[in-house]
């Protein structure tokens, strides 16, 4: 679990927890975020409330919250108090607690506040509240960005509402709704991976979920997005208990010419990482995994990787890191392979791209060998191989057909596992001829005679 170093991160964490509770609920849930800024004194006072209608909280999630003592120890803007109100479906009452987060985890105690009766109504839900001496602005954008990313997961059962009340203009109230499954609905039965794929597609089409609908000026045709996905699981234990890593890769081929939305910088590749259905910064182990992928074999080059998240990870065990790393790598590779398999000519290795460059020439020459032959019987046989029936088939057609076949062979070759690739058969023991060549023979009269001419 990440160590939290700021109130903003804490609030994101609270949202993430609420989201998980919603996800685990079997019903449609609502996740409400309220940021209420009041300025009674000169100091800004911001009340943050994260409430959800998911399953009730077991409170451990709050008790176990890890705060950076360095960051929060001297933090004047926040008292460290968290008010948690929660009830499970089977509870009769709504329980309230107060929790001092500035104490270290082992010393933390919940202070029970007065409960409220539910009056027999069956519902569950949780609210977490805190007050900080910060302006609302430092929270809003971050939370919105977070929620936009969360939409990628396309969990259909959670509706998110963000309400912002600013203190300086009383009565002002901004409300944002975040609904997954909006523009490209998926069936409820869709797998997580499918949802992720679809969500990521939406994310790209909506320019990082900033737009509410697909950007039609950039994405005219459906083919512009090429998507591949892969899943890797811990194989030793059973699938259910083990780690599962799912990767989705999207390549959007928007040229800068046709698009007026993308700036040069947006041409960069964005890596989004979700852990347990929550967007978070990519951990170092996964980053290393990404670095270790042989991108060149997919015709890609790895640029510099900027890790924008700043969460400090609690060190996992070495074995776990290795596992995560392997799984990440595997999932990404599977996603790449998937992408390549589904889209001809995409993600060919640089090597194969070069080789493919020879296809037109090879095709032209082979077509030449066929067409220039004075043996019509031979020509006929070749045509029939190529699937042409008639004699009078045009030269361009033959050439194009051969070219296509060559390209497909080259691409197929590239998709084969690497193992078989590098062992190009070369049975000839050439190394034994390390004799100096008697090339520089100076002979009177012959200007540039070379024994190579023999």
């Amino acid at each position, binding site marked *: 679990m990440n160590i939290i170093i700021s109130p903003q991160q804490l609030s994101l964490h609270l949202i993430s927890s609420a989201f998980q509770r919603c996800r685990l609920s079997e019903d449609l849930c609502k996740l409400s975020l309220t940021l209420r800024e009041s300025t009674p004194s000169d100091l800004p006072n911001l009340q943050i409330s994260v409430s959800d209608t998911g399953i009730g909280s077991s409170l451990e999630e709050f008790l176990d919250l890890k705060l950076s003592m360095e960051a929060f120890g001297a933090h004047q803007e926040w008292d460290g108090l968290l008010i948690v109100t929660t009830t499970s479906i089977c509870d009769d009452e709504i329980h309230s607690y107060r929790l001092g987060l500035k104490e270290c985890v082992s010393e933390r105690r919940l202070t029970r506040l007065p409960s409220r009766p539910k009056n027999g109504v069956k519902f569950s839900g949780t609210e977490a509240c805190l007050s900080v001496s910060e302006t609302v602005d430092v929270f809003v954008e971050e939370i919105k960005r977070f929620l936009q990313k969360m939409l990628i997961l396309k969990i259909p059962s959670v509706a998110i509402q963000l309400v912002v009340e600013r203190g300086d203009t009383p009565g002002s109230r901004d409300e944002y709704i975040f609904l997954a499954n909006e523009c490209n609905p998926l069936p409820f039965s869709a797998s997580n991976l499918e949802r992720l794929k679809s969500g990521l597609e939406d994310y790209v089409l909506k320019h990082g979920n900033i737009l509410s609908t697909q950007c039609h000026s950039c994405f005219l045709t459906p083919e512009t997005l090429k998507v591949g996905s892969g899943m890797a699981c811990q194989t030793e234990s059973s699938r259910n208990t083990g780690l599962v890593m799912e990767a989705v890769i999207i390549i959007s081929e928007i040229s800068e010419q046709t698009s007026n939305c993308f700036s040069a910088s947006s041409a960069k590749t964005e890596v989004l990482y979700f852990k347990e259905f929550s967007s978070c910064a990519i951990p170092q182990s996964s980053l290393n995994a990404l670095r270790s992928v042989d991108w060149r074999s997919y015709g890609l080059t790895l640029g510099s990787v900027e890790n924008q998240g700043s969460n400090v990870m609690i060190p996992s065990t070495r074995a776990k890191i290795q596992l995560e790393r392997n799984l990440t790598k595997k999932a990404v590779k599977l996603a790449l392979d998937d992408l390549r398999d589904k889209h001809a000519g995409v993600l060919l290795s640089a090597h194969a791209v070069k080789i493919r460059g020879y296809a037109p020439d090879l095709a032209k020459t082979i077509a030449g*060998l066929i067409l220039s032959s004075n043996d019509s019987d031979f020509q006929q046989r*070749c045509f029939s191989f190529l699937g042409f029936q008639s004699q009078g088939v045009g030269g361009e057609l033959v050439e194009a057909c*051969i070219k296509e076949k060559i390209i497909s062979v080259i691409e197929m070759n590239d998709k084969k596992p690497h193992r078989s690739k590098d062992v190009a058969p070369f049975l*000839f023991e050439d190394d034994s001829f390390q004799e100096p060549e008697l090339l520089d*023979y100076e*002979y009177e009269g012959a200007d540039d005679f*070379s024994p*190579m*001419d*023999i």
Partner: protein
Amino acid sequence: MEGKYQRRRFSRQPEPGDLLKRIREFTRALVEDLCNGRSPAISIDRFSNYCMNSDSTCCCSSDLPKGREILTCQRENHVHRMDVLLRVLLIVQKLLQENKHGSKRDIYYMHPAAFSEQSVVDRAINDICILLQCSRHNLNVVSVGNGYASELMLVMGWLRFSESEKKFGCINRPSTAYSIPVHVEEVKGIQTVKKHDLDVVSVAQYIIVVEKESVFQRLANDQFCNKNRCVVITGRGYPDIPTRRFLRLLIDTLHLPAYCLVDCDPYGFDILSTYRFGSMQMAYDAKFLRVPEIKWLGVFPSDSEKYCLPKQCLLPMTAEDKRKIEAMLRRCYLQREVPKWRLELEVMLQRGVKFEIEALSARALSFLSAEYLPSKIQGGIYI
């Protein structure tokens, strides 16, 4: 595989029709592979006429391939070679169909950008010869290097032959040089003059192959062939294919002994070896190009003392020369087939000096023709 080569060894040279058929078979197989989604692969046998295994029981003398190279679509350099090979093959097909000849340079110029350099074409031509199991001239490809460097070989002596309509009556003036034709396959009617010819009473008794033109000219100027019943040829340095084929043809037709006179230096020896064993580049075709019958007539390292050559004519060997000799000494065929040559080569290395044939002419111009050659041939002083 073995059978195939064994068979070819004794078979006639392929006709253009045979080769065109082989090209079509090759093309068809290629297209078939492609259409079946198989990655095309071109398998090319590799030949070498010697190896560096000094003591082993190598099979370099067997004329069998020593290995095989398979060009696939998976390596870029292979694909490039495939591209070149196919382009050249297409040109060859045209040459054969139109019954024309093209030089290696001409071929290069068909696609200079794709071929990038002449040697790439040369290699492809060799590969095609191996693929189609033929000699280069069967492809109607001649070697005019860069358009300039081709030197026709020279011949003189008691010989008469014709190439297509052109008659070479060397016999009429035995000491006049004749240039040798390009198309050896069109050479007909090679004959030394028979005794029953009315105007001539003698016949050629042997063939002398000299390394260089200047020595050839010396012999011509000395009227060597007027006084000795022989044929003299020179390949002007490293012998090109027509030269070696012509010599091969002479020996096959006339059954005369052949003696080789080269400089006493690593190049001279390498030229001698090229006549005797063929060159490594053309190892696949060695059996048609080599002349196992050839004897090394001179000049031997020991000749410098035997004939008291002026010391100014003896040059110290360079480190490069020594390196070359050391490398040549490791060639397996020397030990196996001409151990005496190898011994002389060792002596050359030990003495550390080299000299040219012309050193024999330094004291007296006619020494070579009047004394050296007759005494060697009559005395059987050759190896």
